[in-house]
């Protein structure tokens, strides 16, 4: 076990100072809920940590009528309690399934995204809201869509010295229905076997538009474009969506691991779509 105490931990006050320390070979730490466990189990071996959790710009949530900018070091609990979450029920639905209250008070959205886990629950709403990831680094600022920011499992699009500053989301027009469900072995503190989040716009019983995001059924969170298209014009009830549920299973590319087999995950993905129809209709 690597001794955390031998690690240097810097605590810069400004973004500029943080970026300098990161460029010199430091690794960011915010809530520490992934990184501290990673260091203790020797899965991660940073030389030096840079604590970014007290940098003011990273702790802010600002919004106007169009959308919001959520600081990377805002904790899941802070975001859950914010007025922005009043506008975006999908945020509350997803965040409330992360760990338990203490993990939610410590863990941040920036840490969740930088981890780039296909099972990250905080990423599902970000994918559904077509989020831009705002990055700050030695060469200045850039913004990339969340789908290209997450390049693969454990592989965020961050160059040396860069950190996530914030997430910019647009409020969806005409408040859609929203759904989130994660399937695991028990209800709390689980890593998803499969999860589905969605925003669905309806005219009466008919689906006008739909966005879906699935966790743990592909190398990254998945927006199944073909299924989203196929849903347009369908009735929002389980029997009407049976064929599309099968199609959804085919659009995933899950793996076998200790938690579940690929085949089971494919079937759960389809079942989640039917469950969504039952809950939203």
């Amino acid at each position, binding site marked *: 076990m690597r001794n955390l*105490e031998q690690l*240097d*931990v810097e605590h810069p006050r400004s973004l500029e100072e943080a970026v300098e320390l990161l460029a010199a070979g430091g690794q960011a730490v915010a809530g*520490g809920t992934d990184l501290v466990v990673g260091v203790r*189990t020797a899965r991660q071996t940073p030389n030096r940590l840079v604590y970014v959790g007290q940098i003011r710009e990273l702790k802010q949530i600002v919004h106007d009528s169009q959308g919001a900018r959520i600081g990377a070091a805002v904790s899941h*609990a802070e975001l859950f309690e914010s007025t922005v979450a009043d506008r975006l029920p999908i945020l509350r639905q997803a965040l409330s399934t992360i760990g*338990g*209250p*203490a*993990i939610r008070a410590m863990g941040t959205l920036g840490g969740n995204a930088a981890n780039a886990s296909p099972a990250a629950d905080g990423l599902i709403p970000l994918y559904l809201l077509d989020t831009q990831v705002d990055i700050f680094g030695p060469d200045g600022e850039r913004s990339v869509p969340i789908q290209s920011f997450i390049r693969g499992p454990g592989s965020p699009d961050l160059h040396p010295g860069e950190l996530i500053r914030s997430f910019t989301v647009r409020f969806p027009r005409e408040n859609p229905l929203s759904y989130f469900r994660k399937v695991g072995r028990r209800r709390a503190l689980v890593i998803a076997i499969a999860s589905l989040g969605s925003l669905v716009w309806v005219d009466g019983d008919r689906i006008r538009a739909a966005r879906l995001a699935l966790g743990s059924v592909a190398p990254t969170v998945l927006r199944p474009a073909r299924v989203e298209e196929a849903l347009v014009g369908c009735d929002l009830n389980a029997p009407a969506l049976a064929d599309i549920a099968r199609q959804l299973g085919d659009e995933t590319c899950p793996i076998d691991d200790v938690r579940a087999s690929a085949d089971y995950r494919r079937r759960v993905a389809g079942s989640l779509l039917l469950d969504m129809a039952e809950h939203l209709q």
Partner: protein
Amino acid sequence: MKLAFELNSRPVVLDVPPGRRLLDLLRDDLGLIGTKEGCGEGECGACTVLVDGSPKLACLMLAAQLPGCSVVTVEGLAQTGELHPLQKAFIDHGAVQCGFCTPGLLMASYALLQRHPQPSRQTVRDYLAGNLCRCTGYDQVVEAVLSVSRGGQRI
């Protein structure tokens, strides 16, 4: 690093490595052994303490994250020498068996009642979901927390 923070309403100043865990700082440096280490990986909740009013896990927090924070541990609940109403309720309802999980469960329950003085049974269960207990089966713990909220005591 020189670390200044508040612990159970008293100022504390220590010279510690910035990567030292709050858990080791409490137990080994300050002799407050109420806070327990179960898993050391965030899974069991035995090390739950309050930091600035929120429940946090002392096994995952580093000294570098603490400057200026206010920490409350289980020792802070009974500072007057008299047990806190929650502690009495745990005893009265048989919510303590081996007791290893108890400090963490007390602090999580305390955080809950500060936010929701009148929680529903489901709210209590949801809020304590990060705290494992191998002995009681949880019902007694939930009853104890509900009895304090029914008693209407200020927490």
